[in-house]
């Protein structure tokens, strides 16, 4: 029951964040990139709700626009790595020969600590939102693929699937009718955790200067600016950090709740 509640709270918070992100350009007036050197580092006020940063940019605008970047990266990575990971996992489960190669590659990629692989990818491709999405997706694909492969292999052992195969049901039909329904629930749960991880990775990459270009208002970039100034303007680190934390918390709560609801036995692939 408590789990159910936390899922609703998490889901609700996430919906609010998504709405903020989607509606930001319509409900807010002002450019989050507009400089105003004369009014730098101001404390929160009626004019600037979260204050201004070291270049006089409005932090309320930047933090709200930051939600767009963060959620967009998280969502894109979750979607892309789910699709590609599922495809790879299924191919791997279907063919023993492909399995040997694919799973060794996946093991290898997973032996590279996620953030290091992302850093290496960013180092060769250069900073942009698209490159961050590509880098983090590549990092997350093996985790999805391994999960899907495991599920498909165990589903195949089930009598009803064996029966379907033995009566000559076309493979496409087996995938759609028997395998996908078994995959969907764990995949959704895994995707929410991928979403959270992707947002952390994006923020971390931007924070160390390997993510989105410094002028783009992403939470990681705002935090990177704030790290030099938090002693005089703690609010500058507080607001982006709080938004990032609440968003991550909501995704994690949603994920935990979904797991208990849909698939109580599954542990997330780390």
């Amino acid at each position, binding site marked *: 029951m408590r789990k159910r509640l936390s899922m609703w709270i998490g889901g609700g918070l996430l919906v609010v964040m998504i709405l903020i992100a989607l509606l930001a350009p319509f409900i807010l007036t002002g450019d989050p990139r507009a400089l105003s050197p004369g009014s730098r580092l101001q404390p929160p006020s009626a004019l600037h709700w979260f204050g201004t940063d*070291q*270049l*006089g940019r409005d932090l309320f605008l930047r933090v709200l626009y930051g939600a767009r970047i963060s959620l967009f990266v998280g969502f894109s990575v979750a979607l892309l790595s789910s699709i590609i990971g599922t495809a790879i996992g299924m191919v791997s489960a279907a063919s023993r020969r492909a399995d040997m190669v694919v799973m060794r590659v996946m093991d290898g990629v997973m032996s590279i600590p996620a953030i290091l692989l992302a850093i290496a990818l960013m180092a060769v491709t250069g900073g942009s939102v698209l490159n961050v999405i590509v880098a983090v997706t590549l990092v997350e694909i093996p985790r999805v693929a391994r999960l899907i492969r495991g599920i498909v292999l165990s589903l195949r052992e089930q009598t009803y699937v064996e029966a379907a195969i033995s009566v000559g049901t076309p493979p496409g039909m087996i995938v759609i009718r028997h395998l996908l329904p078994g995959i969907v629930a764990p995949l959704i749960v895994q995707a929410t955790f991928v979403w959270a991880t992707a947002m952390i990775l994006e923020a971390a990459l931007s924070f160390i*200067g390997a993510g989105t*270009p410094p*002028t783009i208002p992403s939470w990681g970039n705002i935090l990177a600016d704030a790290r030099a100034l938090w002693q005089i303007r703690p609010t500058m680190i507080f607001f982006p950090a709080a938004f990032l934390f609440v968003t991550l918390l909501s995704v994690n709560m949603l994920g935990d709740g979904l797991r208990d609801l849909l698939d109580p036995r599954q542990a997330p692939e780390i």
Partner: protein
Amino acid sequence: MKRRDFLQGASIAAGTLPFLGGETLAQKATAAKTLKVIHTGNLASLDPIWTTAPPTKDYAYLVFDQLFAVDSKYVPHPQMAEGFTLEDDGKTYVITLREGLKFHDNAPVLPADCIASIQRWGARDGFGQLTMKVVDGFETVNDRTFKIKLKKPFAMLPAALGKSNSSQCFIMPERMAKVDPMKQVTETIGSGPFRFVKEEFVSGAKAVWAKFDGYIPRKEPVDSIAGGRIPAVDRVEWAFISDSSTAMAALVAGEQDYWDAPSPDLVPIMKADPNIVVQARNLTGSYYMLQLNHTQAPFNNPKVRQALAMAVDQENFLKSAVSDPTLMKPVYSYYGADSPYYTEDGADVLKTKSIDKAKAALKEAGYNGEKAVILGVMENPISAAMCQVTEDLLRRIGMNVELVAMDFATMAQRRTSKEPSDKGGWSCFITSWTGSDIVNPAVHQMLRAAGTSGWFGWPTDPEMEKLRDQWIEATTEADQKKAAIALQVQSFKTLPYIPLGSFVQLVAYRKNLTGVWPCPVQAYWNIGKS
């Protein structure tokens, strides 16, 4: 575990925790002899002739020594030299070295070392090149004496050899000084008050020097870089901390003693701390500039440079970096505000301050979308802010712009590239020099336009070079001033760089440091710890 036990345990733990901050007496005794410096920029090169990067200059002042050294009024005094005499109607300098000078490998300093070092410096530095034009030859007299023969009298020679800023004439052993001036020396042997401990150098993390026992300081009191260079501690340690909030916390906590470039935004907190002294050490101030690349599009077009200068509003650049208005000053001149040649003649373009006029001028200049690449140094908050203001400005006047974030050391390497901006080259970067670097045309490295042999940006303008020669050859003060001002007026047409204004440059250190004196460079001799 019962709850009560747990609470008891917690209170014991809490009781012992404050003790964690304490240090043993032994640690304090050893710490007292090490000067711990927070250095903002990484020490990327160990060759002060090859690069003008400030960390390398600061390194060099510890390791090497100079024949002469200027005082706070730019008057040269003998440093390694005991003195000199003039012969042959001022056309020959006879320089005698002090007794007992030796390098860190205990080899004595000989005239051959000095001559080779002067030649290597003369190949790279602006003032050095000027000097070498006048020099006819060198002659060794004995182990402590040598002659510099000139084509004509040149009274500025000791001032050139003893200059305090940009690239200085440091004396290296002959074998190091024979290294191609366009390549870096790798050895670290000098004859200065501290020797570099190469085994403990971790690039990007720390650098260490130990007192050189064989150093004999001069007896005169210290005055700018002149006077006695006394090693007052056993070790100097630099920690490279690029995060200014961490740096300040380390200084406030007493983990470090001295911070060479405190973030101006954090100054109020440090001023409120009774254990910290914040003051200007370089009284000439620091001047920020937007250096332009004259060899590649878009800034190879003089009209595009003019258009950009019309858009620049110095106040915007200054205010973007520092909040305290007493720390900043717009300067519409190519000379420092305290220079005898300071004037606003010719600076009208910089006072335009109009985006619209700049847009129109850019259109007229025939700009067609060539990408402008800004080398954005992000580790220094002032330069980081100014880079973003530049990016914003270029975008607003309608240029295609890319800000590439990097650290200073990377910028120092990349700015050497003369390739187009999309092939690893660059269009502009923010740099800063102290007031004493730009006090007159002789020391001013960026007020040159001699093409590809000059400083990064490589402007070409024979007229500027001619006016500079006029200044050098002028015999009266009035003629000198006339030439210097004409040089500035011409420079505002060519725009070797765009002046962005000046800041008061502060340092922060703990109160128990002794002997910190006003100096245009970060020199660490004479500073002790009580």
